[in-house]
């Protein structure tokens, strides 16, 4: 929102996102095995799963914080660090690999000046490698947030990134 400066998690009480988390936790109350689904929902709200979020989830679901941390770190889709505004996922599934995804990845790294799992200095892009997204007919494929770019040639990378 314009005008508000600090949105960091320690300012929890003022941030409306904590209310959203409360609602999520209430919805899953009593659901055995809800931890992964709750972490998904929490990550949708905050963009990542911070230590504070993990503490809150642990408390509400009645599981040890160590278990929450264990689950959050086991699954590759959960991030413990804030990520950029746009998450670039380069599919490195077999079909994409056979059709040159490694070169596309190298080109994106070159264009953005970051390595895999890093975020650009301006917080705009986070570069990640994804598992097969099942769009093998369009290989090589990258995703930027919800957008999918198929048959991406190395010389088109710059053009695609310029859209954001």
């Amino acid at each position: 929102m314009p005008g508000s400066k600090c949105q960091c998690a320690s300012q929890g009480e003022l941030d409306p996102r904590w209310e959203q988390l409360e609602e999520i936790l209430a919805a899953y109350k009593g659901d055995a095995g809800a931890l992964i689904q709750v972490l998904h929902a929490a990550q949708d709200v905050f963009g990542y799963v911070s230590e504070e979020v993990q503490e809150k989830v642990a408390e509400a679901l009645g599981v040890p914080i160590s278990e929450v941390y264990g689950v959050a770190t086991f699954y590759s889709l959960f991030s413990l660090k804030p990520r950029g505004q746009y998450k670039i996922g380069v599919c490195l599934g077999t079909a994409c690999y056979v059709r040159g995804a490694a070169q596309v990845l190298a080109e994106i790294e070159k264009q953005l000046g970051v390595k895999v799992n890093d975020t650009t200095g301006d917080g705009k892009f986070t570069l990640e490698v994804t598992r097969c997204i099942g769009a093998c007919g369009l290989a090589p494929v990258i995703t930027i947030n919800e957008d999918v770019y198929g048959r991406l040639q190395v010389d088109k990378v710059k053009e695609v990134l310029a859209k954001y």
Partner: protein
Amino acid sequence: MNFYRSHVLVCAGAGCVSSGCLNTMEALVDENAKLGLDREIKVIETGCIGTCDLGPVIVVYPEGVFYRNVTTDDAREIAREHLLKGRTIQRLLYRNPLTSQLVQTYGEMEFFNRQLRIALRNTGVINPEVIEEYIARDGYEALARVLTTMSPEEVVATVTASGLRGRGGAGFPTGKKWGFTFRAMSDQKYVVCNADEGDPGAFMDRSILEGDPHAIIEAMTIAGFAVGANQGYVYVRAEYPLAVKRLQLALDQARNYGFLGKNIFSTNFSFDILIRVGAGAFVCGEETALLASIEGKRGEPRPRPPYPAVKGLWGKPTLINNVETFANICPIILYGADWYGRIGTETSKGTKVFAVAGNINNTGLVEVPMGMTLRQVVYDVCGGIPNGKEFKAAQTGGPSGGCLTKAELDVAMDYETLIAAGSMMGSGGLIVMDEDACMVDMARFFLDFTQDESCGKCTPCRIGTKRMLEILDRMTKGEGREGDMEALYGLAENIRETSLCGLGQSAPNPVLSMIKHFRSEYEAHIREKRCPAGVCQALMSYNILANKCRGCGLCARVCPTAAIFGKPKEVYRIERKKCVKCNACLEKCPFGAVVRA
């Protein structure tokens, strides 16, 4: 009820959505409305038609004209020319890559008419978001028949007699699994659908869930009745958001119709299904890891026995089948075990869906009878290798499988024959590689995958795959040593014998299979520091051919490290030490004088 003179199917599988089919459909609907055709022509959004590289795809019925790569402008033209005036637009037809002939209708495309669609019977045919369309295709009839006329024993016996085997990879007889779970004594049992389709290059489960979600709901409910469970779970990968959305919608519709929930079809049988979304862990495709993940825990496998049929979800007897397996259940109930048993081979009954991708003309999903040869699938159904290149190998079974070479093009694709040929069926991923693929690099790629996805619980898988990967990494960098292949063999055997679950036990397969078939490539990497396919960057060197170089100097200008020198109108040279192998000169040279070896 409105009668339409023409139905237009627009494929809205994830591949076509990525190609922009939703805009295409919007343009078509809009143009139809402008032309006043909206009461005569019905536009239907379907699941995956299967020709993923041709998207967006449109099929116009009753003629069955198949249009490919349809842009929004093309869609408007289809409305004006085809739908209004009845003229087929030749420019948008599919061209057979082998004969260069234009194909006028869907039925004449070899890609479709060589297939036998049982599991995919409704995908690409019905709108997956409308339950009535599923019902119109005999949907929920099998469930009605089971609940009102059959006993659980009879259902188990029918599935057993059909010879159906698990389509997720292992090929375990489905009826046996149902029988074990049926006989397990407990107050509570579960049915789980494994939709954690992790093998890279396999996307049939995604397409079925997106294109025909009710088929899975109906089959799981039948399974629940057969084994005595009243709760089901579908465990879907988080990478498939569209599948989750359509499945959720289908569950709500089924509950509204009374096909799910309490007292289904007014019997005393009750059953319901919940969706669990994964979070990115390949190992969760392994059944015990999957169950742990449904329970909200780290997806780590545990030793078997006890098998899930005895002790599964929350310690209760649990039936786990894969999506494609479930997709075969309703036809087996409706048409009988004998009908199903006549399709396929002696030990591998029915059909198998293959996801064909890589260096192939028609990438996409094909469902063919078990026992069709690799050659028929690659050349007859999928149109062969593009750009006039040679077939080199096909990887089946993903990172747990092996490769088949030119010599094995005529092997039958069924469970036993593939294993005898040193590969496996797996979940049905079929990645085709042409002559430009390096088999050391591919082995490294698969091992990188399994090593990264190893959950870390058992040592042979966690550390063993890492050591294997290090060796392969070295080879691709030109640092291979004598004895490396023997070391790989030794590690492979240990990992296979001692790993806890299927992930580790099968992780060495691609490496072993590739060494077996392409030993000379491995030797070239180790002894000659050479990559015959020209893939491994570190092993390549660039040269300028004297007879082709015209001395234009373009190469020297694009070289980022000033490694190319020479005088205008004379032959330029590359200084090996400075060259960083960026490929810029090769791409730039207008005369093809720069070569890589």
